[in-house]
């Protein structure tokens, strides 16, 4: 069997008393796009209710759905997800699990750290749980999902992920209790 390897395998871990930043692997990312007028109905039959806007995620069981463009959705499913197989032939199905790295931020300073990185209003009254932003971080496109009060998942392009990780952890340096590796 071929072994999966994280794009962040060589990244320096981040440790902070009030803030956790870590890769959150174990997901399946499937991009689906419509090729017929009844695309959304077909999709809904398989994955349930769809998000109404680009700015909101729809969580159905262990799947989260993002509307990422006209007639385009991301299905974030569990590590083993049959959504792609069930949708095969009904729309354009593109597996993208390897293409993104999921970086999770959690803790009270998370919003302050995000504010250092992306031009989005992270105020708790605005970027509430369930909110999604398709935006830019360190000059690369990312998708951010607020999963709970101060918990966020950032979907980062794999090939930029190590550099984005370093940008995120550098922005969070003031909240790091200590580095697990020696600082450079």
């Amino acid at each position: 069997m071929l072994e999966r390897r994280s794009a962040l395998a060589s990244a320096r871990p981040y440790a902070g008393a009030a803030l956790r930043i870590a890769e959150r692997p174990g997901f399946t990312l499937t991009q689906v796009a419509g090729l017929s007028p009844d695309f959304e109905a077909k999709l809904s039959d398989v994955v349930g209710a769809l998000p109404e806007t680009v700015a909101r995620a729809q969580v159905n069981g262990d799947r989260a759905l993002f509307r990422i463009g006209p007639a385009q959705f991301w299905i974030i499913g569990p590590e083993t997800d049959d959504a792609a197989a069930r949708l095969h032939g009904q729309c354009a199905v593109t597996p993208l699990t390897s293409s993104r790295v999921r970086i999770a931020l959690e803790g009270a300073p998370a919003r302050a750290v995000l504010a250092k990185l992306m031009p989005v209003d992270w105020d708790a009254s605005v970027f509430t749980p369930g909110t999604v932003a398709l935006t830019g971080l360190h000059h690369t496109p990312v998708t951010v999902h607020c999963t709970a009060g101060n918990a966020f998942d950032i979907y980062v392009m794999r090939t930029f992920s190590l550099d984005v990780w370093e940008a995120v952890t550098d922005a969070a340096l003031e909240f790091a209790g200590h580095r697990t590796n020696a600082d450079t």
Partner: protein
Amino acid sequence: MTSFRRLPQGGRIDRARPISARLGGKPLPGFAGDTLASALLANDRLLIGRSFKYHRPRGIVAAGIEEPNALFTLGEGAATEPNVAATMVDLVDGLVARAQNAWPSPDFDLMAVNSLLAPLFQSGFYYKTFMGPSKGSWMFYEPFIRKAAGLGRATALPDPDRYDMCYAFCDVLVVGSGPAGLAAALTAARSGARVVLAEQDTDFGGSLLSCNDAEQEAWRLACINELKSLPNAEAFTRTTVQGLYDGNLAVLVQNRSHLFPSAQKGEARMLLTQLRARTIVMATGAIERPLVFSNNDRPGVLLASALRTYVNRYAVAPDKRAVLVTNNDTAYQAALDLAAAGVAVTVADHRSNVSADILTRAGAQGIAIFPGSGIVDVEGAKTVKAVKLGGPHAVTVECDAVGMAGGWSPVVHLSSHGGIKPKYDEAVAGFVPGGFPGSHFGAGAMMGTFGLSAAIAEGSNAGASAASHAGFGKTRPAYAPEHATDRTYAILPTWAPTQGAKGKAFVDFQSDVTIRDVKVAHQEGYRSVEHLKRYTTLGMGTDQGKTSNINALALMAEYRGITIPEAGTTTFRPPYAPLTMGAIAGRTRGSHFRPVRRSPLNDWHVKNGATFIDAGLWKRAWFYAWAGATPETAYVKEMELVRRGVGLADVSTLGKIDIQGPDAAEFLNRVYVNGFARLPVGKVRYGVMLYDDGIVLDDGATARITENQFYMTTTTAQAGEVMSWLEYLLQMQWPELNVQVASLTDEWAGMAVSGPRARAALELAFPEADLSDAALPHMGCRDFVFGGVTVRLLRMSFSGELAFEVHVAADYAISLWEHILKAAAPTGIKPYGLEALASLRIEKGHVAGLELDHRNTLDDLGLGKMAGKDKDYVGKALRFREDCQAPDRWSLVGLELMEPDKKLRGGSILFAASDEIKGHGRGYITSVTWSTELNKFIALGLYKGGLKHEGEEIIAAFPLKNEQARLKIVSPHFIDREGARLHA
């Protein structure tokens, strides 16, 4: 003789917290709450530097951001920061400062000899004097002039401090926390709107901090406390709004230098915030102007408002006697406060009539008033000794300090950043905002509203309006303190000095511009305010003329015989105040300067001795340690590996695009110049696409995976551009096509297995797959599952050898790469890097990014025959325009070096053998390599007329190294023209 002293009580300093800073290596004592400027005055250090051009003794003029003279260099070594106004520096333990632009010291400055030559140094002197005798003379003189006249010197060492940046949003941004700003912020915040209050000072209150009124202080504190209690309000001190931009974007910079932040702990010395506000209230106050008179730059001559600030806020006062000179009522606030502190005050008032109320109150404090008088001259060189008054009271008054009150200039900078010119207000005798966009409001002194209760009322209204504009209707206004009154202003504008003295009368202290310089500029025709500024350097210092501009343009208006509004102002541009470059760079320095892109195989390359090279944003494996320590030797060995055995290269950086839909084949048939409509499933085809202008955009290979799904590969360089191009075509040009595209560049890793033993290697790696020529012919493709993962095999070649590309989901790339190397070890397989990859393709004559440079046509690159004659495709129409078909276009040729003892360089200019080696030549070398097959340097190039000159001998010149070499034009296909190898 003492000129200034610390008062035994009063002020906002904390006498229980003594501070010891160092100035010029010597202790400078003070208290917490002091600025460097107030500590200097408290220690009677009046002479603090030398002027820019004449090296005249200079002292502190102001108490705020407008300070023109008191510039110091802070810090040491790498942390050195020059040109910092002492008025904006907190006195803290550990502060190290030194004077600048004086040697050996401000007190004894050898460059003061410049002052003797002053008559020569009038405006335009440098431009007139140092332009000859030859054309380039200025370039010779400039360094010497800059050395003699100047400011502090920045360090060339890397800045050890950390600078941070963030984005923020709010409903109402209030700039300035004086009475109007506090009222605006509080009123807006009470509505529930998200409010940000930005204050450049170390405390909130603006002009209230310079007062000694208990009721006003109580009001200030109540406002601050309420603001801080509101969860929807944030208030920041030491935060300057440096600029306003489109879309209500404000750039705020907070200075935290006084905390000596630790970069290692992630603490920033400065924080730059890009704040987007729904509405903005500007309550930026006003800056007092000096008056222009002889020797008005002597140390001890300050703004009257500054004297008031020093006495009330810092408990520092002139020792015994001060003379204030004014043209308006506000100077009397300073006069009364100085008198209350025990200073004998004399006021020379340009106005003949002073109100009875002022006369009464001043008289009660023993203040002597000389109506209709001005200062003719200041006596003393390094300190003020006395002033000579003019007018009906022509007396000489001994004094320790002079206070100038020439009126107030509203701070209209931010309101002008959006392009709205300020307008002149006769009653204010200054410029006020010329208007506001719908979401901007102004209040207080910046609007010319100088009275306390009026400013608070205006601020409160502005805050309510701003909140309402942001969607918050109901609020409760902030009211003025019960006994607040509106001071009178009653200005009699005075621009020209009182006659009777010959000393220099300065208009701009920092740039050493005198009234005579303004006159000279006028005489020599530099009469527009923009020309005046550039000819005299007026307003071009670090203070940007905050105290000088109005006086100068009013004087110019007077000389021209026009009104001040007709003269106009210069343009206000960000930043409002001097800004450390580090604050602009923020965290984007060093390795964070730009994003780095890494292949899914990157970690393996690092671990296994690859040397990397930057290719765009990518870090690519250039060559490997097994082949050599330098690229010159390693890539040749790696090329030989591929030509004679088998090599493995990382090609994950290629663009990869998923194209699906019932119209996918038709879509590709339109995008590529060659036919794709009938490409069979399981086959790969090389294709070239053009922009609609007929110029080549990119090339690549596309495989048909199923009837309705294609897998496109692009060059590394054009991956993003091709993806955007396809999306544009589908969305804007052919919305009728039912096609969806998705980038797979990050999803799939790619590895090229190349060389005569490539099939043998893969048969060892994938023993269950039939890789025979019959099962997988040249330009065939197949998906199969290996190790639980889908592997995509494409048989195609970039090197000209038998070759395959193995694509797999990026998560499994390293595992598969290692498996191939291990399983195929008996074939001698080894990795090869980008240098060899690129060199192999030159031998084969494949074009790449260096040839596909967005200037060449299909025919230029020898690809014209590929284009379908009977089908339409993007770029077809313009491809045949006259210029694109010109016979002498620079076209692709192969080049062989004819002089074995020389080497070829990329970029060399090509000339015909009979040409003079001069100019742009007839073409240039695009790609060059040592050929292991031909045992000589070969190259691809673009040459006028192209292969029509095949067989001719030409010259390659590399002027930068003064090299020339003889070449022969040959076919660009140096090896295996029949394609026998790749069909093996």
